[in-house]
């Protein structure tokens, strides 16, 4: 059983290879009208459109994050293909085309560092299946800022490199199976204002 010490105001989920299936598993577990905003980064090809590939829970909008848009409850936001996704102090999104990080744009690390600065301890950061090391540094940044950190258990992850590197670099608070991650996410709603 995983307990929460602080209210969680936003959830970050990052993944690469194997990510579409893993994310859909989590999204299907979300309660209807799930309130806590989720920001997701998934590595994809340059011109791919993301949100249409996903299960959208009742009362939750799955959309591509737009620049200057304010993060809202009952939304799942995806970083657009080809852009890094950052967050400003007023909880609005910024996009950037600066150089790739860990061979990726969008990069998990970039979004995670930015979210960690803005949300501090009110952020839940999750790294799932993937075949590269993006997200490890970001998970450490979230942990240092006081946020709650989770990696998918490598024995379950379709591609292990991403969660393994995150575990090695950040020593996250929890290493969990998708089912447990889904339960933890659902739990954050209880303390969400």
């Amino acid at each position, binding site marked *: 059983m995983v307990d929460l010490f602080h209210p969680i105001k936003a959830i970050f989920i990052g993944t690469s290879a194997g990510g579409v299936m893993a994310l859909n598993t989590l999204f299907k577990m979300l309660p209807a009208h799930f309130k806590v905003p989720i920001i997701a980064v998934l590595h994809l090809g340059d011109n791919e459109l993301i949100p249409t590939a996903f299960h959208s829970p009742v009362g939750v909008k799955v959309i591509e994050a737009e620049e200057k848009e304010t993060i809202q409850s009952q939304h799942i936001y995806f970083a657009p293909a080809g852009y890094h996704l950052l967050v400003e102090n007023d909880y609005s999104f910024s996009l950037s085309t600066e150089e790739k990080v860990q061979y990726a744009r969008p990069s998990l690390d970039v979004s995670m560092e930015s979210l960690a600065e803005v949300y501090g*301890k009110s952020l839940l950061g999750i790294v799932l299946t993937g075949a590269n090391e993006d997200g490890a540094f970001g998970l450490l940044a979230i942990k240092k800022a006081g946020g709650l950190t989770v990696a998918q258990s490598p024995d379950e992850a379709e591609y292990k490199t991403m969660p393994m590197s995150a575990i090695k670099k950040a020593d996250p608070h929890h290493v969990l199976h998708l089912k447990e991650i889904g339960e933890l996410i659902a739990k954050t709603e209880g303390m969400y204002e």
Partner: protein
Amino acid sequence: VDAAKWKAFIVGDEKSTIFEIEVKLFIEAVFMKYKYDFRQYSLASVKRRLSNALITHNVKTISALQERVLHEPEFFTLILQHMTISTTEMFRDPHYFKAFREKVVPYLKSYPSIKIWVAGCSSGEEAYSFAIIFKEEKLLDRVMIYATDINPIILEKAKAGIYRIEDMKKYTLNYQQSGGKASLSDYYDANYGSAAISPSLKSNIVFADHSLATDSVFSEMQFISCRNVLIYFDKKLQNRAINLFHDSLSMKGFLGIGSKESLKFSSMHTAFETWDGPERIYRKLK
């Protein structure tokens, strides 16, 4: 994990507040000393780029960076390379160039002389891409392309028009997808591992220093392309830039912006009609 252990780990809050104070002071100092105005840029991205600059130049704090930048102008030039984003490609987002060729060029043909402005041209790849389209549409001798940026080093690179040969593979694919009528290799000379843009494309391009934050209008442009520049501006500066574009366009002139940018934060958005929605090409109404 127990709560105490978790709490001991929290170092973020205090540190990030100081960092932000330093970043804001740094931006102010840069403006006062060098007149480069980043005061209305999106802070998240500026913070990230300055963090990178600290690592690259082995400087501990932004305050220390500020001291060096104020006292060593040549060091500022190096830091400016971090503060501006230079990501670009020839025919980047090929469908944009296809839409330009098919939906804008036919209207430009009616003008005896055509002026276009590539704002935020970086190392020049987009400006040369437009020159290639005009050449293939047999309009190049009537066209003047003004390509501007705030970064003097990158403008020199743009003027030189010499690119990495490795990038040409991607550019060739982009060119083909954009509806190119010949072969991209017709427009550059490959030697010693680099690709030099043909002089015949250069004679109708003027590269110049211009800031959307502090400088004023160009006159009577038929087309302005400014892509992935507005995303770095706050709403107020976006509004300034779009006003500037509006005032710089001739009657019924065209404006193209980045695929994730919009005119919605501009007081001028009703002064344009959407010409190609997905490719973000707009036309000035009057």
